[in-house]
């Protein structure tokens, strides 16, 4: 461990050369810009800017690319809060409370807390990573298809009712999300499902289109669905001192941030779209431990601090499998892997020994990158917050154009735009009928993976269902799920047993 510290300091030495700092900054700026644009996320950002890094030394190149990665993660939350448009997949949960805060004129604190929380989450995660990386990576390997399935089921059931509206309706939306997720190529058999001979549908339903549609476009439509005179009234112009978080805000967020870091770090180790799941898990946790759960969904700062922190922490810990095992667990890390390889650095067990300068330099620059992003973002908070001052008449068309453009840049497919608009209309209707969009999105993300894991497990065990309960981790997750489902009944039974003390309605 002491050795690790030594290496880390050496890494800092490398990372803090003027040139490298500059590259990190450039990457961070570029990444933020990319992240702000809806649709574009860290993957596209890294992919686009790889050629720019070709002339640099491997260390510098990776430092720059990591900067882009973070920038994109940070940038994604900006549009979520201001416009209810998820900048990228992991910012969906931030829309829920973040946008409500913005509507109340509290966009500034929301944005600031995002930056602060992300920074803390990322930093804590990095330190944990430095000391715990190898054993954790090996532990992550123990996750085979059955464990993965059980974990997904557990997460899915627990997180479906994340926004707390009617459980039944949330589950319905979740199942709809699962069904939508089956469209496209069946990963196990290679057959096409529900594609109706359309080339567009072959690649499945694009998550980003659904997310931007259900959240962003639906919000725009809901806004437009108001008489013109009312339209401008609903904007609360923040006072200057409201542009920064108050001490109260900070105090309230501390717990959320710490919990978010832990959750994010843990979840990030699991293969798959970890950051998204981490945000849902953090939101759920904050609701459960809060003194005022009914405030969630109306603009609580914990609802923003927790998920954003978890998001960043998960992004960090997603690097662990990449660097230690050489295997990318999440799509952005896959492309980072590619970038590394192009520069001749093959991440994996050998990386620490063969290219220690790159390894530790990158780790140190992650820390620095986080810091730079904090510095970059905080001063811009008032600027971003005042975007909301733009009269809605002008802002709404801009947002619509913004979404359409951003959507196209993801896959260069007009079909995505149609899907987004259709989802926007659907989202509009769903709002009117009090159906939640968040469970649908979660299902869309988790569903396909869950199904694949299920079928893989059965293929491995030759059809024996016992495989799910014979393996310890898998059994643990399934038991947790069952307990969770039974909990309301327990609570009911306990209350009944305690006697009929009139306590107001149950549930």
């Amino acid at each position, binding site marked *: 461990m002491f050795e690790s510290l030594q290496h880390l300091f050496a890494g800092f030495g490398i990372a803090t050369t003027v040139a490298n700092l500059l590259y990190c900054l450039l990457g961070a700026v570029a990444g933020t810009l990319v992240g702000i644009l809806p649709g574009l996320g860290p993957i596209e950002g890294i992919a686009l800017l790889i050629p720019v890094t070709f002339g640099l030394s491997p260390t510098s190149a990776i430092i720059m690319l990591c900067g882009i990665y973070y920038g994109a993660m940070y940038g994604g939350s900006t549009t979520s809060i201001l416009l209810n448009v998820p900048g990228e997949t992991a910012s969906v949960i931030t829309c829920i409370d973040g946008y409500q805060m913005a509507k109340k004129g509290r966009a500034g604190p929301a944005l600031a807390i995002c930056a602060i929380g992300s920074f803390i989450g990322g930093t804590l995660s990095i330190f944990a990573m430095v000391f715990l990386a190898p054993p954790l990576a090996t532990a992550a390997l123990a996750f085979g298809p059955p464990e993965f399935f059980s974990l997904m089921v557990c997460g899915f059931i627990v997180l479906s009712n994340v926004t707390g509206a009617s459980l039944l309706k949330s589950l319905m939306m979740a199942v*709809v999300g699962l069904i939508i997720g089956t469209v496209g190529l069946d990963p196990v058999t290679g057959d096409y499902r529900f594609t109706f001979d359309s080339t567009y549908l072959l690649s499945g339903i694009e998550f980003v289109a659904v997310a931007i549609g259900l959240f962003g476009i639906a919000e725009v439509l809901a806004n437009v669905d108001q008489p013109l005179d009312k*339209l401008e009234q609903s904007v609360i112009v923040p006072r200057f001192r409201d542009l920064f978080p108050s001490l109260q805000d900070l105090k309230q967020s501390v717990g959320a941030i710490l919990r978010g870091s832990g959750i994010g770090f843990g979840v990030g180790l699991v293969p798959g779209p970890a950051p998204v799941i981490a945000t849902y898990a953090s939101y759920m946790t904050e609701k459960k431990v809060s003194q005022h759960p009914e405030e969630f969904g109306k603009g609580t700062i914990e609802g923003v601090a927790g998920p954003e922190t978890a998001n960043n922490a998960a992004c960090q810990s997603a690097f662990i499998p990449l660097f230690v095992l050489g295997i990318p667990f999440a799509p952005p890390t896959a492309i980072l892997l590619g970038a590394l390889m192009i520069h001749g650095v093959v991440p994996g067990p050998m990386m620490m020994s063969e290219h220690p300068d790159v390894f530790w330099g990158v780790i140190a620059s992650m820390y620095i990158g986080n810091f730079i992003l904090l510095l970059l973002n905080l001063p811009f908070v008032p600027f971003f917050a005042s975007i909301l001052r733009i009269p809605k008449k002008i802002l709404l068309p801009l947002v*619509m154009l913004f979404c359409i453009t951003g959507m196209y840049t993801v896959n260069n497919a007009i079909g995505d735009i149609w899907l987004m608009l259709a989802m926007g209309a659907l989202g509009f209707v769903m709002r009117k009928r009090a159906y939640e969009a968040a469970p649908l999105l979660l299902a869309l993300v988790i569903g396909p993976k869950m199904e694949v894991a299920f079928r893989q497990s059965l293929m491995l065990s030759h059809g024996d269902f016992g495989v799910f309960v014979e393996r310890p981790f898998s059994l643990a997750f399934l038991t947790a799920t069952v307990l969770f489902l039974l909990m309301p009944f327990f609570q009911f039974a306990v209350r009944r047993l305690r006697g009929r003390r009139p306590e107001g309605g149950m549930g």
Partner: protein
Amino acid sequence: MLPPFRRCPLEIRTHRTRNRACGVIGRLGAGFRGAGGLPPSSAVGFPRGADMKMGEVIGGVIVLLFGALTIVLSLQLPIGTFRMAGSGLFPMWLGIVLILLSLLHLGNLRLKGGSRLEGEEKAEPPSEATKQMMLFLGASVLATVCLDILGFPLTAFLLMLLLLRILGVRGPAMLVAMPLLTALAAYFLFVRFLKIPLPKGLIGL
């Protein structure tokens, strides 16, 4: 005294929920006009609870039908066994679960009556707003159609123009300058600077 019932272009019988999102729900609701034995229109004094309940029932029915559709489509795919699952196995079960859930939901509604439902529905909204929303959406749809024909910069310009106009912006300066700036800015940012391709129209932009 309720505001006069506005004729929705789609001529749907029950108007309450239609006014809200005329075309969207209307199109869906049109198929289920007879679904719940909906009461006659413009019922003055009709309790709002039952009004929301009708909307809820329709919602539940739509979900139910979606589940049924899923099952029907899944059956066209190989189902296989659990050991060697075919593509259709999972969606089929999902469809079944969805139908069960929507039945539960509808049953719930029956039991609880209309009072407990979460609602945000204000009194009859001015249909002017709804028309505005439909136009807004329509303009966006039109723009999407035009993207491949006119290319990005031009379409972006026209879209912004239309949308601003729909929302009531009139001054020619704003009406032309803003779209122009935005379209050009987007073009240069994406196509030139980031090298991300945007739709090129037939005129090759």
